[in-house]
């Protein structure tokens, strides 16, 4: 068994090495490129994108749905597994909370990016209609962002205090950790408030998380458009979100295990468990996919048929079948084998699932818009197709880089694995604090 000091040394945040600095620099360069592209968009308008009267939602909205989806992992691992009493998930809670916060911040930002006139965003609040799912989405995203930040912050309080003591020789760092730990010393009253707060947040985040993705699904499902007009859309989106989120956690936990040497904490067992969980989530999601595509295909109404034909055999067929088979079916089959639930194979599978999840959102959002219901005539042939422009891609990559930068910076300054909880679960007792510690 490790001592508390060893535990703290293992789990305390580490400075960036050479690769870490290169990674941050790379992300900053991508973000700067995206900011340049957004400057072009802000000055010239959405005409710089591939979006036109037909495809009025493109990769920005696909990206937004992806961010919302992946943010749901915070509720899955932190709340659902915590409330279910699943102890093995403790090392993964912080990772999933970090992903959730990063994703929801960038999700909100992506919506503003998609706006042709972001300067009019206040109108949404002053003239918004409570009957509109867009207003519900704004409310629920803001709520989820606050809950996610609180759920990341509350469990951090003891860890920040531990870090304050650990870095007592580095006064500046110790001071900041002290400030953010809010004078935590683990007394009875503080513990009582702390436990109640985390328990409340764990309960609160579940309906809000379901709400955020259901409302996002309703943005589509409350229309009559083929491919969107479905009462199945809420649960279908949630099932897909858990798949994307689990894939994201698996990918990040593998990277962090390698970079932060956390083999003793994020073990093969964790990968095995997450692999099993991912199989279950993919199977549930595939079930919803069958419902989503098979029922309209059976009915074959005129408009649905045109849309499905485009997906199954038309221009979008290659992407559609790649997403379904490579992004969902093959991972589910492979993960049935124990060897594939080892860290490296699972990491690769997790990564494929995440990339597949991004393109799945594209398949949901865009192709149906290319079949307008209104008889729009005399438009250029190019408007019948949607191809994102380079600037559009650059902005999208910028948001993804932004999310990864938030994750990277959080990982740099806060413990990836909860020190306090790990110590408690392993009955590792924190040494008595010295009088000087208390004074400081």
């Amino acid at each position, binding site marked *: 068994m490790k001592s508390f000091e060893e535990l703290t040394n293992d789990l305390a945040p580490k400075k960036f090495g050479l690769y870490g600095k290169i990674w941050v620099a790379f992300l900053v360069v991508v973000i700067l490129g995206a900011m340049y592209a957004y400057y072009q968009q802000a000055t010239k308008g959405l005409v710089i994108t591939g979006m036109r009267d037909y495809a009025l939602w493109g990769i920005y909205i696909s990206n937004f749905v992806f961010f919302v989806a992946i943010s749901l992992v915070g509720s899955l691992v932190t709340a659902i597994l915590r409330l279910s009493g699943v102890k093995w998930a403790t090392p993964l809670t912080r990772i999933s909370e970090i992903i959730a916060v990063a994703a929801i911040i960038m999700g909100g930002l992506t919506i503003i990016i998609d706006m042709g006139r972001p300067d009019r965003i206040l109108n949404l609040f002053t003239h918004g209609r*409570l009957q509109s799912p867009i207003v519900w989405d704004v409310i629920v995203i803001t709520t989820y962002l606050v809950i996610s930040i609180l759920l990341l912050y509350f469990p951090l309080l003891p860890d920040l205090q531990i870090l304050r003591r650990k870095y007592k020789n580095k006064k500046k760092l110790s001071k900041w950790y002290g400030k953010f730990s809010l004078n935590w010393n683990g007394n009875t009253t*503080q513990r009582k408030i702390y436990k109640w*707060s985390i328990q409340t947040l764990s309960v609160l985040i579940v309906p809000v998380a379901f709400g955020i993705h259901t409302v996002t699904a309703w943005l589509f499902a409350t229309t009559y458009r083929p491919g969107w007009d479905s009462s199945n859309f809420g649960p279908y989106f949630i099932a897909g979100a858990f798949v994307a989120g689990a894939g994201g956690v698996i990918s990040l936990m593998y990277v962090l295990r390698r970079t932060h040497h956390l083999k003793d904490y994020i073990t093969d067992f964790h990968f095995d468990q997450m692999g099993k969980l991912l199989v279950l989530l993919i199977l549930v999601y595939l079930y919803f996919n069958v419902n989503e595509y098979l029922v309209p295909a059976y009915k074959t109404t005129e408009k649905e048929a045109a849309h499905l034909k485009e997906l199954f055999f038309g221009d979008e067929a290659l992407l559609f079948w790649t997403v379904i088979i490579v992004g969902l079916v093959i991972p589910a089959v492979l993960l049935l084998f124990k060897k594939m639930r080892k860290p490296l194979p699972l990491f690769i599978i997790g990564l494929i699932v995440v990339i597949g999840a991004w393109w799945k959102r594209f398949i949901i959002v865009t192709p149906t818009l290319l079949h307008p219901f209104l008889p729009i005539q005399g438009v250029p042939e190019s408007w019948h197709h949607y191809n994102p422009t380079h600037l559009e891609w650059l902005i999208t990559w910028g948001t993804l880089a932004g999310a990864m930068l938030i994750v990277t910076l959080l990982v740099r300054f806060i413990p990836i694995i909860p020190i306090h909880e790990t110590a408690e679960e392993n009955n590792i007792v924190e040494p008595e604090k010295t009088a000087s510690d208390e004074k400081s």
Partner: protein
Amino acid sequence: MKNLNIKNHIVLFICLSFIAFSSTFIYAQEKKKKVRVSLHFNKVENISYLKIFGKYKDKKKYKPANGLALDVFQVFENDSLVSLGTINLDKKGAATIDISKVFQQNLPQYDFKVFHKATDKFKKVSKTLTIQMANLAAKLITKKDTYFIEATLTNAQNEPVKDAELKVQLQRLFAPLAVGKGIYFTDENGMIHVPITEKMPGVNGKLNYEVVLDDSDDFGTIKSIIATNIGEPIKDLSTFDQRTMWSPPSKAPWFDIIIPNLLILGIWGYLVILVINLYRISKHKNS
């Protein structure tokens, strides 16, 4: 040799100048347009008016003679003219002039003339129209629980006009709707009887039927309107003052106001408590 070259240059300069000036002159003297004018007599109830249309051909297409000024006269037997006024054709090349007072003269026939003096744009043009006075009287009658439209067409001598083609139609917002087969011919009494078999909807049950003698060579266009109350009253389906999901924000349904706001208040209430808890934790360091 040199002198010859200079001479050639001077001749060439004069020729080019002539061509240039003559083309400018031709351009300035733009060809006057020949206008085609048509006259139509219309009578709706007791109001009579002339409808005048003018158009000219330009690049093989007819265009409205916008702005064409026309003097309108009544012509009497001794070819004397009495001015009825001057009108200008509008953008559509059309104009209307009220001539109801003319028909107080009780003449067997009426002659009208419109005239345009030549201007920079249009050539001189004139057109005449001769019409006889006629009366079209229409009313709604009931026979054995069936409504009928009865119309009688008589000439200026109050004699029935036989075999005249009358249209019977129901006034609608965009275009009239034919009643029955739509076109009926007057009998030896100058009458038609048209049964109304279909119950049509109307605002408060109001339906306006019209009987039209359309563009007759002798009588022009005469229209008689019958205002009735025999329609199926239209129910007001407007939700203007109701609270619906498609109303403006101030008229959102109560459930859409109460439930989301309760949820928001409930959740944000807890969030406020949780933020206060952070403050409480920082204040309880010595407990």
